[in-house]
């Protein structure tokens, strides 16, 4: 629970510092405003993306060119989550991170943080609650946030709002 709250706070801070409140949120523009390079490249099919931070260089997010824009959007937000968590630790590190089956199960704290961060970044709580009050279905919300229906459903469930209608 603490991990999710930390992710929520971190995402809120990033959004208020770097985003104008319009929808859908573009994580690539946010990443670039944080000083990161974002590139797409052909990666192994089980790799959605990676965060590369080597000593003395700007961090880079690598997205799988074969993925849909929706998937790339979530992966990019996920990698920003890793970056934020690493930066908060204040370490100078050389680290290659990637998201695969292991991360999608959310077994590690880092991955749980990054997944929660991505959800909070792409689907800001305030907007989700507003749309919910307006009676939008999860599909309508998913279209506005430009995320998958599953991601939207998880987000609604985590906010204790009604899921699929």
């Amino acid at each position, binding site marked *: 629970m603490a991990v999710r709250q930390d992710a929520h706070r971190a995402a809120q801070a990033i959004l208020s510092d770097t985003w104008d409140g319009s929808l859908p949120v573009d994580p690539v523009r946010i990443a670039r405003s944080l000083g990161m390079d974002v590139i797409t490249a*052909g990666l192994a099919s089980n790799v959605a993306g990676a965060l590369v931070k080597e000593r003395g260089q700007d961090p880079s997010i690598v997205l799988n060119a074969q993925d849909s824009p929706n998937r790339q959007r979530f992966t990019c937000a996920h990698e920003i989550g890793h970056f934020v968590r690493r930066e908060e630790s204040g370490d100078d590190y050389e680290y290659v991170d990637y998201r695969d089956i292991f991360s999608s199960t959310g077994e590690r704290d880092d991955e749980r943080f990054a997944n929660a961060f991505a959800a909070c970044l792409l689907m800001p709580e305030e907007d989700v609650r507003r749309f919910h009050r307006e009676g939008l279905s999860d599909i309508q919300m998913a279209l506005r946030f*430009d995320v998958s229906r599953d991601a939207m459903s998880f987000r609604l469930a985590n906010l204790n709002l009604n899921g699929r209608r």
Partner: protein
Amino acid sequence: MDDAEDEQSGSGPEADPNRELIRQLVQRFRSGEAVDDGAELESLPGPEQLQAQDRQQDINLKKKYADWLLGAVVVQLIVANTVFVVYAWAGEHWDLDAVVIDVWLGATLVQVIGVVAIVTRYLFPRRDGAGSDDHQAH
């Protein structure tokens, strides 16, 4: 390097090969080398931008089809008329039976009209749906 650092840098004996590949890929990208499907992103397109891109691709594809089909019609007309003249000149000294001329010109006309009809009907359908199979079915 302790175990934690070893795990993070991915340089240990059981390091995931994906990590090293990705690190090399980033280095190649930074040095300006060609990378498969490599591109630097400024932003990710939203739904409206994707729709606009989709429409533009549709227009470009239609233009390509129309150009090629109309070119084919022009070539067909040139070939048909050339063959007709050569045949008439060399074989019959313009003394052809009227049926031959009628059939030849009729076939060419039908072919041209057919191609133009296909192009206009299927590549540039009317916005009100008239002329489509669905419309006719109702």
